[in-house]
Each structure stands twice: as structure tokens, then as C-alpha cells.
């Protein structure tokens, strides 16, 4: 699926040589990657490999010990950069949704445009409604998070990210906390986004999703990227023995 049009496309995200340790635990050992505009890359790998930490370092929820991150022209890792402005352009979808529990679905989506982008209440409200429609939840606008299913919560949280008109969206295992029958509705929304040209970095073991829309799959282990390739090639001819083993395990677990 490597797209020749994108080969000289605009670089949205550039990560160079990221290192991060928590106490004695070296989580990231020199991770580098690039995302072009409109690309979707999927990160896989055993747990504790630093996949989530990688995402958190990209929007500076965690501060890397070494290495740099650029979002388009802005260096995220520059200490003098206004990090709130950078984060406003990077959507983040959490495994545990983290919807604001005291706000309705509509208000969850509206609050970012209103408080961060300075939109009027009415304008932000209209935008929020559009984004809820986009994820198929217009009818749940006035429901509180506790009244939604896991799948619905995650779709609201995607709408919340979209309402910020992000340059890039980071997904941290967006379907891992969901009951199996709810995974489909979330993946469907994500596939739609990828096809609409959203730039996405997705930590997920949903190989169906990866096959459908990923430009590349990155296999991470022990804090580094072991192998990266377009899905068909990675599935057909993994170069690294560890990658092959891991992919076999995934297929055993989830089937095809």
C-alpha cells in the first residue's frame, strides 16, 4: 500500500533517537520514525516495550531524556515551545477513554474548541455536533459518559480529538479495554479517518485494521523499533525472527 504520491509528501511527525527511562527501567532506547501527511502507521510489540511511552513522549505528556520530536516545523521537545499550543494540534485517544465524567458527550467534544481554541459556545456546539455525527453518535449528545457503552465512549473521545482539527492523532491501544463485540464500531470510525487522509500513529494489535489502512507496521521490542514494513510484506516475509514469532502469536490469538 506504499503510496508513491506520498513519497515526497509533507513530513508531519519526525521522531529522532528518543530515549526515556523511569528510574532504572530504560523504556525507550533510541526510537526514530517519520509520518508523512495522511499516513497511518501501526505500532505493535509485546507489552512493556515502550509503545505507550513513545506516544506520550510525542505530545510531551512524558518528557524524553534524550532525542527530539518535531510536529511539522515545531520542535515539541524544545523547552521554550508553548506546549499547550502543540498539544492542541495533536489528538490523543486513550485506552481508558478518559472522557470528562461530569460532562455530556456533546460538552466533552465542545470543551476543547471552546476553552483552547477560543470558539464561541454556539460555534463550538455546532462543531461538536458535527463531530458526533461523524462518529455516529449524534443521538447520544446529551448522554453522560456513564450512560454510554465502552465503544460509544471511545467514539466520543475520537470526536473530542477531531473537534480540535488535529494535525496528527495518536491512538494508545484504543480497543484494548473494549468487549469484543464493541471493537468493530471503533475500528470502523478509525478506518474512515485513515481513508479521509488523517495522519495517525496507532498502537494496536488489531491486525485487521493494520492490513486495511496501515502504510507501515512498526514492530517494537525492548524500547526500540526492530522492524518496519508495509503490512503485506511484514506478514509475508518478516526479516527478523522476533517479528515472525510475534506475528505468529498474534495470528494464533486473534485468527486472521
Amino acid at each position, binding site marked *: 500500500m506504499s503510496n508513491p504520491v506520498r513519497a515526497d509528501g509533507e513530513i508531519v511527525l519526525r521522531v529522532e533517537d528518543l530515549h526515556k527511562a523511569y528510574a532504572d527501567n530504560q523504556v525507550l532506547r533510541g526510537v526514530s520514525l517519520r509520518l508523512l501527511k495522511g499516513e497511518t502507521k501501526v505500532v505493535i510489540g509485546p507489552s512493556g516495550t515502550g509503545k505507550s511511552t513513545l506516544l506520550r513522549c510525542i*505530545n510531551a*505528556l512524558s518528557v524524553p531524556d534524550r532525542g527530539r520530536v518535531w510536529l511539522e516545523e515545531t520542535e515539541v521537545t524544545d523547552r521554550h515551545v508553548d506546549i*499547550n*499550543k*502543540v*498539544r*492542541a*494540534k*495533536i*489528538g*490523543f485517544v*486513550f485506552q*481508558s*477513554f*478518559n*472522557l*470528562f*465524567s*461530569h460532562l455530556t458527550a456533546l460538552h466533552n467534544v465542545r*470543551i*476543547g474548541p471552546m*476553552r*483552547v481554541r477560543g470558539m464561541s459556545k454556539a460555534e463550538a456546539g455546532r462543531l461538536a455536533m458535527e463531530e458526533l455525527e461523524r462518529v455516529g453518535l449524534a443521538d447520544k449528545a446529551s448522554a*453522560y*459518559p*456513564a*450512560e454510554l457503552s465502552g465503544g460509544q465512549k471511545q467514539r466520543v*473521545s475520537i470526536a*473530542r480529538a477531531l473537534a*480540535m482539527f488535529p494535525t496528527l492523532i495518536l491512538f494508545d491501544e484504543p480497543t484494548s479495554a473494549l468487549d469484543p463485540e464493541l471493537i468493530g464500531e471503533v475500528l470502523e470510525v478509525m478506518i474512515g479517518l485513515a481513508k479521509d487522509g488523517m495522519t495517525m500513529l496507532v498502537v494496536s494489535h488489531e491486525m485487521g485494521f493494520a492490513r486495511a489502512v496501515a502504510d507501515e507496521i512498526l514492530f517494537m521490542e525492548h524500547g526500540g523499533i526492530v522492524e518496519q514494513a508495509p503490512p503485506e510484506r511484514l506478514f509475508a516475509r518478516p526479516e527478523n525472527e522476533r517479528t515472525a514469532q510475534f506475528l505468529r502469536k498474534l495470528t494464533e490469538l486473534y485468527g486472521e
Partner: protein
Amino acid sequence: MERGTLRVSQGTKGGGVETILQSLQPLIVKGVPLTIALTLGLLGMGLALGFPLAFAQVYGYRPLRWLCATYEQTFRGIPALVLILLFHSGLALSFHILLPAFVSALIALGLRSSAYQSQIFRGAIQSVSEGQMLAARSLGMSKLQAIRHIILPQALRLSIPSWTNEFSSVLKDTSLASAIGVVELAKEGTLIMTRIQHALGARWILAIWLVVSIIYLVLTALGNRGLGFLENRLRIPGFETRGKVER
């Protein structure tokens, strides 16, 4: 005082019960308003100080956190009566700063309540899950915005039940202000007791204090009702503070 003596001397002609009823009037007319004013005043003061204290303790830098913790432990560690005496007699006699008794009581009890309230709010803030702050920050909100729009509204809701408890306890603590001559409910009771004892004898004294007790009871119940109503009004699905176990 002359007003009181006058009324009692009139009352003696009309019989015991009438005298009692007349003497009790100042309880309602003067004692109750003053008790309410002192309660509201000190709760307001405690709220105004307690909230920033709580946020400073959770989100502040280390020296600030330490300072707030020391403040809070100091004011929780001194008996209310001792604080009142310190802010009234202590200041007056040692430094010639003579504050009106009401003001001394307000400050002493207000500072004390701010320490307790900061504990209530701190607990509430800390029970808002960390993911809420993460999500707010990842949208590009500043820490202050996240606190104001996300953490605060949730913490406030969570703190209402404990705050109701604090209300009940400070309402009753205002009676300690009688020690420095604030004529609130308890002090009014004492004054009436003296008058009645002279006019009708000691056996009515129990009745006086029963009436005073009932007034406190009613005020506490009314306040709890009001706060319970507020709790219900602000209730959000999934945010119930009282979980239900049905069996």
C-alpha cells in the same frame, strides 16, 4: 440587660409559662440570627481559604505544599475554644489589639474550618482520576484551565457529603464564641437562665436548655436538608457519591 429585667418583672404577673415564652423571645430574635451569621461567615471564610489551600497541597511546588500542610496541621491541632481565646483575649491583652468579639470568633473558627475544609477538598481532588487531567492537558488546556474546567467541578460534587458534615460541626462550634461574650444562641441561653432563675426558680433551667438544644437541632437539620437538595440538583449519572448495595 435592663430590657430583660423589665420583661421578667412584667412576666411574673402573668404566670410561669408566659414568662418563659417571653424570655425565650431573644433566643429566636437575636440568638438565632447571630448563630447563623457566624456559621455562614466562618464557613465562607473557610471555603475561600480552604479551596486554594487544597489545590496548593495537591498541585503546588514542594515548599508551598509543606507550608499548607503545616498551616492545616496547626489549625487542626488546637482546640476551637483555645483559638477563640487566643484571637480575642490573647491579642487584646498582650498587644492591645481589641477585636470585636464577633470578629475574633469569626477569624478563629474560620481559620480552623479552612484547615478542615482543605482536607475535604484535597481528598475530593485526589479522588478525581488522573486520566481526567491527562485528557484535559492533551487537548491543550493549561494546568490552570484543566483544574478550573475539569477537576474543580468534579471535586466540588464529590466534596458535598463531607462538607455537609463540616457544616454540622461548625454550626455547633459557634456556641464556643459565647466564652468571649458573643451573644449567640448559647450565650443568650445563659442570660435567660440567669433571669429565669431569679424570677421563677431553678427548676425551669432544664427547659431553657432543652429549647436551646432543639433550636440547634432544627438549624442543623435544615442545613443538611438544603445541602442534600444541592447534592441532588448537581447529581450526574455515574457520579453518585452514595453507592447502592441492594442486599
